[in-house]
């Protein structure tokens, strides 16, 4: 082993042991072998599937960490490409943490942190996102004032001014993307119909910082996260729900690093699942569709929510659920995460195309999911004959 970096604050020192101990079993490239049903769909790593060189898989990224630690690798454009084409889907993490007792995702995160620290990052395409979050509290370069445009005329309670049980944290993408605002409205309508005491933050809602974290700008993320923890704790609801899987995993898991939230955090579909099970929501109208469910990485692998969406789909009369070969913890990423869609749109489109191809192989006529990033990216890859739906849209359609 060559002499390592002498910088005691090098983020890679935290993952040095993993980098050296990667035993090259190569299981990080594939879904759990016990779950393979179709060998056309057994690769797990999106960047590895597309670019194929070792460096694009977790096993290769461990070697890159080693090379940087030993000073044998320099920062180049190709290094940026290897580091930032990872969607941080967590697939390798799930497989390797079980099989190899290592945390490749931690290595990837550390690599990005170091890239930021050493000013290799942000990528030019990401700079715009970071500035937007800084200036407008959202990555979409949209004014704060328009954050509540989706809820006009809905008469929703302001959670800061009224006592409510539940805070509905909408998230930036659903708040601003015109194609997805409908899902925020649908969610609110479902909660209203179910008689849930809930409110929103409207224009005062802040970006959760997930984008900053996944891209690697940890300092900016930390600033935002601390601010958000304070603010959300001050709202003081029993529960916080969100329709965005990215927000869900950050609020639920990552904010623990800063003391965590006092409220119970869950994805909105989990609450809807509870309501269906308890009879608070009645699904009577048939929705005749053959659907397949895409597990968002940040809902599935990051927070372990697999069963709730499936229970919901099975409860909707008329819906036939067929699983893709890669599902649950083995789900193939949509391709959008961790800033990939912004920096490498062609690659993100390729990944989405692969996932849509997989959905088509099931014979389903709709992909259902629970994450706005997934809906955006997969939605752009679907063609006629394949709808892209949010799970709560189906619930809404079936509700009496």
């Amino acid at each position, binding site marked *: *082993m060559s002499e390592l970096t002498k910088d005691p604050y090098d983020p890679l020192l935290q993952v*040095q*042991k*993993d980098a*050296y*101990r*990667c*035993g*090259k*079993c*190569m*299981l990080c*490239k*594939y879904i*759990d*072998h*016990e779950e*393979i*049903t*179709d*060998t056309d769909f*057994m690769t797990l790593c999106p960047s590895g599937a597309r670019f*194929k*060189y*070792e*460096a694009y*898989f977790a*096993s*290769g990224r461990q*070697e*890159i960490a*080693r*090379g940087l630690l030993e000073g*044998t*690798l*320099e920062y*180049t454009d*190709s*290094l940026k490409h*290897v580091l930032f084409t990872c969607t941080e889907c967590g697939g390798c993490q799930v497989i390797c*943490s*079980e*099989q*190899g*007792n*290592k945390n490749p995702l931690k290595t990837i995160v550390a690599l990005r942190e170091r890239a930021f620290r050493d000013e290799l990052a942000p990528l030019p395409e990401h700079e715009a996102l970071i500035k937007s979050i800084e200036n407008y509290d959202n990555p979409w370069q949209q004014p704060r004032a328009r954050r509540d445009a989706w809820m006009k005329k809905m008469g929703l309670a302001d959670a800061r001014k009224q006592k409510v049980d539940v805070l509905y944290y909408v998230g930036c993408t659903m708040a601003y993307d015109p194609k997805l605002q409908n899902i925020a409205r649908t969610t609110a309508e479902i909660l209203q119909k179910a008689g849930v005491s809930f409110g929103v933050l409207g224009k005062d809602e802040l970006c959760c910082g997930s984008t900053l974290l996944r891209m690697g700008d940890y300092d900016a993320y930390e600033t935002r996260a601390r601010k958000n923890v304070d603010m959300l704790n001050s709202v003081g609801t029993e529960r916080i729900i969100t329709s965005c899987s990215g927000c869900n995993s950050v609020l639920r898991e990552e904010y623990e690093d800063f003391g965590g939230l006092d409220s119970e955090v869950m994805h909105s579909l989990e609450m809807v699942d509870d309501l269906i099970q308890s009879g608070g929501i009645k699904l009577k109208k048939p929705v005749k569709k053959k659907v397949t469910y895409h597990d968002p990485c940040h809902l599935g692998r990051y927070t372990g929510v697999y069963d709730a969406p499936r229970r919901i789909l099975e409860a909707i009369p008329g819906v036939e659920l067929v699983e893709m070969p890669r599902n649950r913890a083995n789900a193939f990423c949509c391709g959008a995460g961790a800033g990939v869609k912004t920096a490498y749109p062609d690659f993100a489109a390729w990944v989405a195309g692969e996932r849509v191809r997989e959905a088509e192989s099931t014979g389903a006529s709709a992909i259902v999911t629970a994450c706005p990033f997934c809906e955006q990216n997969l939605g752009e890859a679907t063609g006629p004959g394949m709808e892209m739906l949010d799970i709560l849209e189906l619930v809404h359609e079936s509700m009496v």
Partner: protein
Amino acid sequence: MAVKQVDMTTKEVYTELLGKLKKIVGDEWATDDPVILIGYSRDQSLETAHNPNVVVLPESTEQVVKIVKTAREYNAPVIPWSTGGNTGGGCIPQRGGVTVDMRRMDKVLDIDVENMSVRIQPAATFGKVYVEAEKVGLRNAVPSAPASVSMLANHLDKGVFQVSNKYGVGTDSILGLVIVLPDGEILRTGCLQQDNYGSICVEGPGPDISGIFHASMGTMGICTEMVAQLYPLPAHEEIMPAEFAGDDLDAVSEFLRQVAREDCSLETILFQDGYLALGLTPNQDGAETLRPQMPRQSALVYYGGETEEELEIRREQLDVIVERTGTELSPDMMLELLKELVPWKRVFKIIQVTPRVERLSGCFELFWFNINMNQAPHFARQFMKFARNNFADTNPETSDRPYPYEETTFYLQPLEFGRSGMLEMDAYPNQGEPEGIKRGLAMARDVIPFICEEGGHFDRPYGGEKSGFGWVQTPLLGTYFDLLKAVKGTLDPANLMNPGRLGISADQAGV
């Protein structure tokens, strides 16, 4: 013959070579970018990492031919990489050169259901083939290796299987090969020697030249296609776990020998407590909780057949052996745990034990060799001594993971009616620390000569000069070694195909 080499620097040579390789495979699939190259510098062994100069990803035999011929023009070493799962340094380009990553050649080309064979490319993994074969009521031999490794490479490397007593080792399952020779010619052997042979399972025609490519790690050519045997999937299968206390292998090796001799099992596997606990639990904590409750040695015998009646009959045969040898069977709790492994996909749990052992310290250092079954206890005892000598005083202040010698594990596979056995002995140096690697190498220096002196025979000449079986044993093999050098010198006079392997040094290769 090298072109312009005398006047060019190494960088210039490889830059020019890279340009030509890109014309063969396309711009995207060849590179000399260090960021990419580093991914090919290590494998599971303790060998020193070393980058290639260039990596290229072909998608056909024809492209491999062109790559080999072009590399030859530049005197560039060529190192094939199927899935990179080599445990003996075979993929590491110790002298630089061109790593040929076969990942784009990962297809299961055809399964002949009636004649039980499969035609595969180098990067088709065991897992992939297993899933496809199972759909048609067949299976490949289950290796003691991860599901993610190349079935083609493992078979060529004389992979030992849990079914080896019944079906032999990897080379016994090879029906035909397509090899790109060092001069770029294509050679087809066995059932592929002619297009219309079908999938016949006998060597030839004539003198069996396919053996030259077994365990050769690409030194004699690159295999781009293989027809391999598949086997019937048993309709009924059960496990009989037998347990043995203590570190000694006396009782268990005799038990396994008798099971093999009676030919009444489908598979046999020997695990120590730690190793089996790793296979049965989802994480390290679980393994450490389970381990103290497990017997020191567990011999898992899978038995069964086409009908339930056959299953019963095989069990009867095994019961007779159990009684005769005074073997104790594991209690119900263990059987229930293991029964989860019986359905057809259980093989992946077992073969994913290999990567799970990496939980311990990131790698394991393995020595596997052939012996008579009754020699196993002697080797195991001495190995434990070596492990204690090399690792027991690991300083907890400088290492976060001192190696407890109790973690030393053994895998004993009887072969062919118990005529001989393959014994694997594993140590777990911490690859994450310089000290760990040092101790691992010291261990190899103790163990390998001991094995050779005591009559253990390595049938794969793995490893580089620091830690390899090949470097110690191969020169001891008399006329075989002379012929090996001569064959290598004839097929690859410039010693460009994965040089530094087989225990043949550069001057011995006649370069």
